[in-house]
């Protein structure tokens, strides 16, 4: 076991609050968990040396003011964690009818009991840092949408970290039957910081979740997160994930079809440069029949960066009539960069249609040549082609304002990539 984990466990032992029973359970699991090595399948390509060596520590300084980046033509209900602490003044604003947002510790006893029973049920126990988050997350935000409520204003949850800070943030979202909500997770971290950010979504029957996760910071931070979704009968989700890498960026997504006729779409893209690392482990569990899943994952990896993708689709015995598709495409831009991808299918039901595809290649040389013959410089042509590769997924984003916001950021990123 690493010193870092030992210290996390020691720190956790002194916490005693409304989550005590769940924290005790996670602590017990943690004490028996082995620190991952290259032989640990889930961390095979992602060494944890940077976590072992991190100097990040929790910073409790009210003087530190950090603000989430502004998005043009876009307004949202803003919730910002600063170094893991939520500014409670944000919770006093009036909320649309049917939506409630509170800190776990401020809930009434009956609400607490309900939140406690839902805590850590969508997130699987196998995520080591999820367990760390279970025991260390202080301000747990509970977001609830009443049955039938359609909330048009999105909720943006930002996790902001200052230089050298350590933070553990946790959010629990429940969508009542037939409700609708849009959530944006946004990670903005400064150098030498370490964060774990986990969000659990319980999506009731016929409810619809629109989900975004942006991690557009780069640099020396360690950013480990998880977005976990449980879908009931006829529930729907549409998720878009845009990530740049860092010293270590790891995201685990779990989509659980816990009801029939659920529909999940996940579009993820990552653009890596320098010596960044990004690791996406996306798991889909089809536990019930008639579900559909469509996953598109695209990566562009330049310079000395490394990308890891593990896309697992597990069709359980009873999940007949499932349709599941996973498409993973990668562009490798340099001979010192590395792409490791593993699309997995584990299927126990016979009347299903499942497919996955994965490709790794470089930019189409002929397309590049064509553009150059038309007078476009090589570097510009490269940006154009790269952008086209990702733009297909940006176009699928349901929220136009967010798409317009992220497009130039990505274009800028490509322009930086080609300089090297």
């Amino acid at each position: 076991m690493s010193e870092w984990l030992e210290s996390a466990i020691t720190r956790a032992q002194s916490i005693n609050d409304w989550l005590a029973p769940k924290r005790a359970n996670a602590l017990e699991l943690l004490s028996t968990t082995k620190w991952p090595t290259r032989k640990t399948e889930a961390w095979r390509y992602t060494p944890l040396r940077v976590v072992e060596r991190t100097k990040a520590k929790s910073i409790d300084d009210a003087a530190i003011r950090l603000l989430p980046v502004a998005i043009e033509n876009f307004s949202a209900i803003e919730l910002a964690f600063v170094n893991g602490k939520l500014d409670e003044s944000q919770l006093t604003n009036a909320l649309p009818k049917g939506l409630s947002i509170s800190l776990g510790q401020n809930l009434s006893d009956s609400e607490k009991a309900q939140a406690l029973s839902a805590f850590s049920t969508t997130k699987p126990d196998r995520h080591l840092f999820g367990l760390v988050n279970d025991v260390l997350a202080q301000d747990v935000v509970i977001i609830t949408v009443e049955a039938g409520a359609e909330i048009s204003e999105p909720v943006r949850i930002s996790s902001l970290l200052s230089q050298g800070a350590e933070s553990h943030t946790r959010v629990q979202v429940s969508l009542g039957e037939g409700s609708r909500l849009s959530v944006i997770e946004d990670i903005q971290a400064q150098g030498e910081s370490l964060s774990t950010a986990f969000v659990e979504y319980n999506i009731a029957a016929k409810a619809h979740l629109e989900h975004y996760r942006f991690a557009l910071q780069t640099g020396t931070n360690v950013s480990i997160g998880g977005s976990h979704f449980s879908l009931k009968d006829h529930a729907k989700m549409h998720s878009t994930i845009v990530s740049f890498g860092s010293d270590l960026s790891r995201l685990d997504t779990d989509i659980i079809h816990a009801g029939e006729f659920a529909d999940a779409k996940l579009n993820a893209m990552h653009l890596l440069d320098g010596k960044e690392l990004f690791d996406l482990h996306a798991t889909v569990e089809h536990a019930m029949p008639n579900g559909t899943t469509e996953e598109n994952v695209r990566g562009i990896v330049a310079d000395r960066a490394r990308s890891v993708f593990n896309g697992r689709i597990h069709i359980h015995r009873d999940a007949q009539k499932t349709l599941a598709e996973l498409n993973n495409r990668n562009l490798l831009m340099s001979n010192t960069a590395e792409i490791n991808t593993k699309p997995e299918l584990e299927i126990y039901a016979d009347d299903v249609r499942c497919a996955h595809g994965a490709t790794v290649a470089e930019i189409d040389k002929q397309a590049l040549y064509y553009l150059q013959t038309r007078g476009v410089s090589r570097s510009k042509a490269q940006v154009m082609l790269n952008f086209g590769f990702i733009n297909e997924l940006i176009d699928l984003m349901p929220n136009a304002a967010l798409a317009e916001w992220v497009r130039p950021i990505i274009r800028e990123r490509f322009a930086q990539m080609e300089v090297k």
Partner: protein
Amino acid sequence: MTEQIDKALAREYEAGFVSDVESETFEPGLDESVIRRISQMKNEPEWMLEWRLSAFREWLEMEEPDWALVDYPKIDFQAISYYSAPKSMKDKPKSLDEVDPELLRTYEKLGIPLIEQQMLAGVAVDAVFDSVSVVTTFRDKLEEAGVIFCPISEAIQKYPELIKKYIGSVVPKKDNYYAALNCAVFTDGSFVYIPKGTRCPMELSTYFRINEQNTGQFERTLIVADEGSHVSYLEGCTAPQRDENQLHAAVVELVAMDNAEIKYSTVQNWYPGDEDGKGGIYNFVTKRGICHTNAKISWTQVETGSAVTWKYPSCVLKGDNSVGEFYSVALTRGRQQADTGTKMIHLGKNTKSTIISKGISAGKSNNSYRGLVRMNPGADGARNFTQCDSLLIGDKCGAHTFPYVESRNPSAIIEHEATTSKVSDEQMFLCRQRGLDPEKAVSMIVNGFCKEVFKELPMEFAVEAGKLLEISLEGSVG
């Protein structure tokens, strides 16, 4: 402490090195003295014994792999006997009447000639002498071409230089748990050497090799194709083979020198166990080939037998422009479990690999494809295409795909595709409409599903493989 050590040492001595060369089967158990005895039985030179012992010491330090999607009770390696001499004539069944009628029915369906049936069932009859004469003419022809094809134990005596140079050069002693065990205790296997520029005049088959019976559970094959040569090698046969040994841990090493080509075809149909999966063979095989410049290695396998299969025939594409291929049909039924696939390691420039894997699961079986495609930084312009298709028959089986794709070269292109489906109602309806009974219909659909792989097999083999699938699928429809 020292007392305990002394005791332990003394105990080992009790079992004794004083080997009883006369005895036909060793007592169960494994320690250095057993390896010394095997080596002595085979009359091996000192270097071979040293090689075995160093592998054994490595093995003691290793752990049994547990990453494959297979489930079987823990193997007690001390409960296995590591050597048994070929059965003497008097222990064998006197005629086919004494052989399990179930087995004979299968032979009949496969259309196997009587003499071969007797051979396969291990019947002691004079007829076998006929086949010996076949083998002799066969040997003459090979000798004329300069091809060496003999048991590996014979090669260790006759061609020590070749063996020393190549054994363990593709699959190192400590490559994996079962390979290390095989290095320590292998009893026999084949050795093939094709001289420079030679095209082997016929397809080589283990089936025709003298001393084929009872090569034992730890078989070792080494094929070296020298520059510009060509060989096609067939392993196993379609007929179900009986074997008392439950654990099989074979190692196959292929070396294709510049411009050489090796085609290695396998049909594996070991006993899969009864309906509850009891008593079947555990087939844990390490197969790997190395391709030098412009060389080509092609693996084709049809896997229908064994209770547990753990097998990943691989190619190390070391030389520029070398080619690796893997064509596989794996069928599981009953309680069978197969975890099989390939590794293509691209090191040289413009190397190419193709992987076509067809998995068919029926009954309560589990069938997994597990593969690795790795493009190293030097593999400029390398290319891989992978296609894994799974077919499910019934709702109690499982089909899984675990492909690892690792690229460190931007000019390399990798494509991986996988699909899973079942025999569709429409397909069945169409066939039934045209008067085919359900079993025939399924077998036809399955044969079509496997066509891409069957066409890679030598002709007679392909026909037999088709028949084999049909028989294996009997009773799994409806």
